[in-house]
């Protein structure tokens, strides 16, 4: 039972098509609100964490402990004028930030969240092929970056987009192969091995323990997907102004910013679902969501630490890393996990 099916049954007295449409609308609105609030929380946590690590205090003026600072920044961005470059390609320029944000919110709809006390399951929509759906959605977001870079007709934006493409092609294949190892291991235990929910339910021993190489490759891929500092080639703000988002201002820039932090949150959720046991834990039927959030938050803080402790690596080194190290490691991980599953029966 997901939130979507419960909404459909709630609206079912209105007849078949209307109830389905209403369920979709309500679900999307709830999801957008929850996603943007959790993004604000992640941004606040990042700013506070970065400040404390750099021996500063961080936002503490707007609201208690600066809790409303993110909201104030968002209002400021929303009130700003969007300046359009004259030679832009209009349609791609306008839809690029939307693609990133909508892709992100869609990805949050596919993830299973476990259940919480009397509310029951918090999973928004559960399909039997949610792994494929999730990675299809994750593959949409780089297109937004590329469109933004090419359509703004700016040399920095174009260079940023080219770097983003080079980065994306070099990590996505290792990422998919490491996910394939997960699906392979899950298929020995469950019939519907392409559903994230059933993958997590088979994870009595977290797959991160069985596949240490897999979690290594997948974490690096998720860092590259979110494109923050060790791998922020698309932005490269010390060389390319701000890369593909150079020509954006106002709310459209805010969408890129939210996309960055949302990708961190999404990556943390996905890692904790696939490799850290997701919502498995003591009292799973009532505290499942809490376990998932705790694991995801640990991953978020690891991501922040990684962000704050490393410089950007050069683009050719990252491409080398992707093709010469991550891909063979992912292959070895695939073979190892196949061996573990077939021979040892783990």
């Amino acid at each position, binding site marked *: 039972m997901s939130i979507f099916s419960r909404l459909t049954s709630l609206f079912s007295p209105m007849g078949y098509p209307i109830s389905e449409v209403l369920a979709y609308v309500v679900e999307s609105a709830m999801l957008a609100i929850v996603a943007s609030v959790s993004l604000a929380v992640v941004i606040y946590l990042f700013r506070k964490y970065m400040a404390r690590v750099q*021996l500063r205090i961080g936002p503490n003026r707007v609201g208690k402990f600066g809790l409303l600072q993110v909201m104030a920044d968002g209002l400021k961005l929303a009130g700003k004028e969007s300046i359009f470059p004259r030679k832009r390609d209009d349609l791609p320029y306008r839809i690029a930030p939307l693609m990133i944000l909508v892709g992100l919110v869609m990805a949050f709809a596919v993830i299973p969240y476990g259940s919480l006390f009397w509310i029951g399951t918090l999973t928004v929509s559960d399909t039997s092929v949610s792994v494929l759906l999730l990675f299809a959605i994750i593959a949409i977001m780089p297109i937004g970056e590329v469109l933004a870079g090419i359509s703004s007709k700016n040399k920095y934006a174009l260079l940023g987009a080219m770097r983003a493409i080079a980065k994306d092609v070099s990590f996505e294949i290792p990422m998919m192969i490491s996910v394939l190892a997960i699906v392979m291991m899950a298929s020995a235990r469950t019939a519907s091995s392409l559903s994230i929910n059933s993958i997590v339910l088979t994870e009595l021993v977290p797959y991160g323990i069985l596949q240490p190489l897999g979690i290594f490759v997948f974490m690096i891929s998720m860092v590259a997907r979110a494109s923050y500092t060790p791998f922020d080639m698309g932005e490269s703000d010390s060389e390319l102004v701000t890369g593909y988002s150079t020509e954006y201002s106002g709310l459209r820039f805010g969408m890129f910013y939210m996309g960055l932090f949302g990708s961190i949150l999404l990556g943390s959720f996905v890692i904790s679902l696939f490799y850290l046991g997701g919502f498995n834990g003591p009292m799973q039927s009532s505290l499942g969501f809490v376990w998932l959030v705790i694991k995801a938050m640990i991953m978020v803080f690891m991501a922040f630490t990684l962000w704050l402790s490393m410089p950007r690596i050069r683009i050719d080194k990252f491409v080398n890393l992707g093709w010469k190290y991550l891909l063979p490691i992912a292959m070895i991980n695939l073979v190892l996990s196949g061996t573990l599953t077939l021979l040892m029966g783990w």
Partner: protein
Amino acid sequence: MVRLVIEVKEPRRSIPIIGSLSGMMLVMRHLFRKPVTVQYPEEKSKLPDRFRFRIFLKLDDCVGCTLCEQVCPNGSITMQHVDRENPRNKRMIYPDVNFGTCTVCRNCEEICPTDAIYLTHVFETSRTRNSFTYSPEELAMQEDEVKK
């Protein structure tokens, strides 16, 4: 001809992930250290004992010798006429100080024969523009009494 050959050493190679992890640990350790930021108007950092900024003047002690005016390297001090009964200051001239150009060299304090002019640790002398000059009466007042 002597040829200078600069020998460039290859950096020592180590396992790459170890260095990254130790960097991450260093970043995490900083989380538990006290922030160095001082939230200025609410909390103030402790000033050193010998910190001096604001110049004060005891009008009763000043004899109008103009030594402070002569010794001031920037010409920040000029003598002003003040109508004030003081048997020791027959010419009725007292120094004023322009804090816009004062470099706090403390020459005036050192040369004053009666210790009438002296510096204190008061430093919050922010004023509206074009009025950095403290008149002799203002130099005698406490900082919060001075009209900014």
